């Protein structure tokens, strides 16, 4: 069956109508049912395929080429100091594939030669130290799955529904398994002095990214990581070494980590004063808002992933996470919050990691207002955007963890909206 579009630019609507027609032809009614042309002897059933090593580093199917990170061009002046977005609407489970993890650079991707990699520890330590990559590999290693969310995720949505697609509203996040050395062990090699209370991790890229991190966090669960999902960090994620600061805003996870200074007070550098501070309506600003609040989003259906099958059995799925623990529960509503239903959690439930939820129902084809609401292990419940605005106003850019609404129309098309 051929799908043809009229006019120059095929619209999503045209595609959906086409898809609906196709579905109808195959399944509807008992009369004049045509045999499915897909059930035939196809070329791939007869001809030999590629041998091993055709693609020594395997890539996704050519039919998945649309599953990729995307940029919102008007957001920033240039791609070297910019962000792109993880295609959440195309993913399932809890792990983000390495090549789809969103990127955020402040001076482009630094290309480090691992043989010239050095990690320096200096400041209020007994012995300032230098470690090579090989040195780091000799420390005891740990494996942990953590989400990394940019503090600005959903930041464009403070003033109202703006972008049509959960990739753009919620895609500044990824969730991978890190292999690395507890930062505590590295600091112990240098010996932190009693006066040392703060750390300043610094990147080796041309922005020389720095953030002040309290020592307690470093001694608790920070990792100096060199692998993601089992393989070396991708260049755009800080190859060969990045800092992992579980549950805290992504900007602190310094990539291309070259140095950690120990001090007795914070540094108040650019990324913790001019940026990544939350301006409130009265003109004052919160600083050091490190923890990421519990949050969730329905990834399908969503504006980039409409319902194409018509009414009947329908799967709603999404992700939830919290910087303070696990997500034991997610609620889903179909009617804009009049009635809520507990979703089904599936997959590992790990501290400060993404969780996957599902809600299946029989869709009667009438319009829906979909929302999800995360509960974390501390008892915190994801608030509405209006609850957040009441406290923070509309200028804070960062830390928008409000409930997201998708309006689904009778054709199954989803739109980003706000509701009363």
């Amino acid at each position, binding site marked *: 069956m051929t799908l043809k579009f009229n006019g120059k630019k095929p619209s999503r609507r045209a595609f959906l109508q086409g898809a609906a027609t196709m579905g109808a032809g195959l399944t509807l009614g008992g009369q004049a049912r045509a045999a499915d042309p897909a059930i035939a002897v196809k070329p791939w059933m007869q001809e030999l395929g590629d041998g091993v090593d055709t693609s020594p580093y395997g890539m996704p199917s*050519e039919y998945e*080429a649309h599953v990729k990170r995307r940029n919102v061009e008007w957001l920033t002046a240039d791609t070297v100091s910019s962000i792109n977005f993880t295609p959440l609407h195309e993913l399932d489970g809890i792990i983000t594939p390495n090549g789809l993890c969103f990127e955020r650079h402040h001076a482009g991707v630094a290309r480090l030669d691992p043989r010239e990699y050095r990690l320096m520890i200096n400041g209020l330590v007994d012995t300032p130290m230098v470690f090579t990559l090989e040195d780091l590999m000799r420390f005891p290693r740990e494996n942990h799955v953590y989400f990394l969310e940019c503090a600005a995720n959903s930041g464009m949505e403070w003033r109202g529904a703006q972008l049509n697609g959960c990739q753009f509203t919620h895609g500044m996040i990824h969730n991978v398994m890190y292999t690395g050395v507890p930062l505590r062990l590295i600091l112990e090699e240098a010996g932190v002095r009693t006066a040392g209370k703060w750390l300043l991790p610094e990147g080796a890229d041309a922005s020389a990214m720095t953030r002040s991190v309290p020592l307690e966090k470093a001694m608790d669960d920070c990792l100096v990581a060199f692998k993601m999902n089992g393989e070396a960090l991708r260049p755009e994620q800080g190859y060969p070494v990045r800092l992992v600061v579980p549950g805290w805003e992504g900007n602190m996870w310094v990539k291309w980590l070259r140095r950690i200074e120990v001090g007795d007070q914070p540094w108040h550098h650019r990324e913790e004063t001019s940026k990544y501070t939350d*301006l409130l309506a009265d003109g004052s600003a919160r600083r050091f808002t490190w923890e990421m609040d519990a949050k969730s989003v329905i990834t399908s259906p969503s504006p980039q992933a*409409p319902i194409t099958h018509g009414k009947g059995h329908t799967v709603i799925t999404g992700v939830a996470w919290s910087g303070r623990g696990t997500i034991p529960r997610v609620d889903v509503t179909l009617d804009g919050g009049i009635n809520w239903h507990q979703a089904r959690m599936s997959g590992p439930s790990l501290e400060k990691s993404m969780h996957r939820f599902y809600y299946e129902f029989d869709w009667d084809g009438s319009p829906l207002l979909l929302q999800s609401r995360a509960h974390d292990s501390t008892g915190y419940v994801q608030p509405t955007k209006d609850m957040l605005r009441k406290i923070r106003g509309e200028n804070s850019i960062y830390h928008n963890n409000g409930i997201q609404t998708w309006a689904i129309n009778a054709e199954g098309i989803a739109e980003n909206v706000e509701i009363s």
Partner: protein
Amino acid sequence: MSRFLKAALFATLAAGTAQAGPLGLGREALPEEIAVWDIDVRPDGLGLPEGSGDVATGELLFADNCAVCHGDFGEAVGRWPVLAGGEGSLTNDRPVKTVGSYWPYLSTVYDYVNRAMPFGYAQSLEADEVYAITAYLLYLNYIVDEDFELSRDTFTQVEMPNEGGFFMDDRAEVELTQFSAEPCMSGCKTEVKITARAAVIDVTPEETAAKAAEQAATQADAAAAPETEPETEVAAVDPALIEAGEKVFRKCKACHQVGEEAENGVGPHLNGVIGRAAGAVDDFRYSKPLTEMAGQGLVWTSDTMSEFLLAPRSYIKGTKMGFAGLKKENDRAAVAAYLATFD
């Protein structure tokens, strides 16, 4: 011996004595090594180097190194950061957060200019130059007079207008209890209305669902017809060199565009630059020295481009191009070959 092993051995030799940490890993850092990387500055002035610079010197340096993105008076070009103005705007609908209106500490300005600016040529400024540029930024924000000189000694005397505008994260007190109530599960509202729609604002990038759907349909349709993107036609040139040039060109992309729909950005677009007279892109404001050299007949060939890129600021003294240059001859040849593929 592999290169890696050699490097590792070298590192061990340079290492000196093994240390007394619990695991005995790593080596002691030398003071001169720490001095190279430890450049951070704190609000109390810790980390500031010796040096000084005044507003007038800062203005000249700013025009040469910063104004291409930030504008002559910190007003910004395009989407690059605004550095001056915005006083009293923090409670507005559209607050303008600048050095003067928002930044709490002067040390942040010095530290950031020193570590990350000029964009694409970081850590190239001398201490006196950073002091001068910082002084000029204070002047642009009406914090100091035009005859002000900033030095390590005067540094901590400067108070930023919004220093008191920040407070520690108080979500634990203000939000967590309120947001931890057991929520309603049924009959929670009587009616629901849509109050805002993203489609009304319509700022979602093109090539999203519609494009994806189109791709999926076309692909499902035409079994396996590989996607053919229009490729630049290249005749009698080395494809490997051009490919290498494309990589090198990443260093240029912050300011220069090439290809279809290339426009002037911080720098002029570079379509057709090889084989063309210098300074010939309409609507681009070239520096005076470049215009003068163009007047003397400078034409961009692979050779002149390579010479220019070796040391841009020596080749055209006073060029607005804030780029250190390409030291490797291969890189210069490659980027010229790459540029030659765009008409």
